[in-house]
């Protein structure tokens, strides 16, 4: 905190003065929304009112009631059960996509910061190439080559998020590299890999947590868009994007059906965005623009 105010480190959490340690409204709301998604996903493993894939034509397009809390869709499937299992898809895709982004991006950023000009420039140009392929475009390409699946969607979103991690981690790592303790470690003859793991990585971890939360929101957005286009999770596995796509064809018959998945996606993204902003403010008062 004292040596580099722009670089939120994990220690920053413990160094935070008590008056800042109080949860901000952003963290509160964001944390609650994200918590609800996690809760829905966890519950879906143990209990859903009906099987989410149970087709029951006689009970199709029912309005919300005690038996079917959110009604049923065109095939008579229980919408509430589908939404619960859909939360699982959202969490799963997000975790893997952000994981891929961090695992690809963070080492690139650290290596770029610690290496000589040639390696560093090569990595930066490589990141430029990655930036030319937005998540949606990459996922459509992957889908074209390997057939659309949850895996191609996760990989594509992950690779598309990697540049953000790499750039951020590089900026953080450059600051860490200029500190006295890194200089001391280099004078002591520590190898670069040791410095990277012992000094650089722990110090950029805070940055990565913030970026992960922001990227998670982007991943949820991208996954829902892909599933909507038919390039994400294939049927019958429920996904909020595909539930929405199926509901949209019935917009003239039952507009309410579109509302549930639309609201779920928007609130989940809002949750991750708020959580990311809240964490950033908490770790890094310098960037606080609310004054």
């Amino acid at each position, binding site marked *: 905190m004292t040596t580099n105010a722009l670089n939120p480190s994990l220690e920053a959490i413990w160094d935070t003065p008590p008056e800042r340690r109080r949860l901000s409204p952003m963290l509160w709301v964001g944390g609650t929304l994200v918590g609800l998604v996690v809760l829905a996903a966890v519950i879906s493993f143990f209990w859903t009112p009906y099987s989410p894939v149970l087709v029951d034509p006689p009970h199709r397009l029912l309005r919300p009631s005690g038996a079917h809390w959110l009604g049923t869709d065109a095939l008579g499937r229980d919408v509430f059960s589908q939404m619960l299992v859909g939360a699982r898809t959202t969490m799963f895709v997000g975790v893997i996509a952000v994981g891929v982004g961090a695992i690809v991006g963070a080492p690139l950023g650290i290596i770029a910061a610690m290496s000589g000009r040639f390696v560093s420039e090569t990595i930066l140009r490589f990141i430029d190439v990655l930036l*030319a392929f937005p998540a949606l475009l990459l996922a459509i390409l992957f889908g074209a080559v390997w057939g659309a699946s949850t895996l191609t969607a996760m990989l594509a979103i992950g690779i598309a998020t990697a540049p953000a991690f790499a750039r951020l981690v590089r900026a953080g790592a450059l600051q860490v590299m200029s500190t006295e303790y890194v200089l001391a470690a280099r004078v002591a003859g520590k190898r670069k890999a040791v410095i990277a793991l012992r000094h650089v990585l722990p110090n950029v971890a805070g940055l990565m947590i913030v970026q992960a939360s922001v990227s998670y929101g982007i991943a949820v957005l991208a996954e829902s868009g892909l599933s909507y*286009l038919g390039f994400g999770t294939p049927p019958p596995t429920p996904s909020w994007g595909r539930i929405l796509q199926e509901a949209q064809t019935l917009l003239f018959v039952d507009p309410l059906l579109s509302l549930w998945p639309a609201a779920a996606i928007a609130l989940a993204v809002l949750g991750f965005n708020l959580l990311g902003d809240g964490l950033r403010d908490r770790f890094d008062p310098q960037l606080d623009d609310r004054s």
Partner: protein
Amino acid sequence: MLIRVLTRTSILFGTIVAASIAMFALLAVLPGDPAQVALGVNATPEALAQTRAEFGTNRPLVTQYLSWFGNFLHGSFGRSYLTRADIGPQIADRLQVTLWLVSLGMVVAIVIAVPLGVIAAVRHQKMSGTLLAGTSQFGMAVPSFIAAILLVDIFAVQLRWVPSGGWTPPASDPGQFLRQVSLPVLSLGLVQAALLSRYIRSTTLNVLREDYIRTARAKGLTPGRAFLRHGMRNVAIPVVTVLGLQMSALLVDAIVIERVFVIPGLGGLLLDSVSNRDLLLVQGVVMVLVVAVLAINYIVDVLYLLIDPRLRIST
């Protein structure tokens, strides 16, 4: 200054080449033989060999890439393996449609975001400012295709003010064009407006704290005039970067929005070509989108150098 622009230009071309190689390599592992796809399963080996020679798919991959990229540099995308139609004009047709959506969407975003962002910044300690900032936070969380479906539900299904989809070229029937394009453009623009207004708000907040604004106020200018005369320009500089990023985002968003509103744009062409396994067409469309994204980033970087004199001397 000139050297920096030239360096940036060479990076642009290097990146385009690298991105085209990456895409070509990715699509080269695509299963299936284009000649087989074109002729069907009953084709004789002789006919297949002849078609492969015609398409040039019997040559080594490197040769195929070089001839494809060479043609691309000359503005030719080749002929579709499936329909044998020239790809270039198809892409040009569809690109026009998408560009209408993207540019009108951008206009909507700017028209909404600039006043909202500035008002939210000026009133940041009042209820109204906080409310505006909160609304934009919520707007950012709504993907454009969800905004689109909600807008269709309200304005096309319930109120029946506008059609729920379709496309008429602006030249043939301007009235119908505006009616059909209003919802797609709104759904593209609203979401970007939320993002943009947040950015304008924080930039404006920073600018308002600057010494030169205080000096202008001390000279007797009203807060509004001080901001318009001295602040606006300084808000504009960082906002240009965000606008560029948003243009790229809109291009990608348009792929989904075109699907929602059944608009024959570039996104529809891409999705159709993927499901038809029309390899050259996929390559062509992806290449156009990739070059567009890279070109936008390039223009933003160069504009940045031109607008902000401080960047020209430093480093």
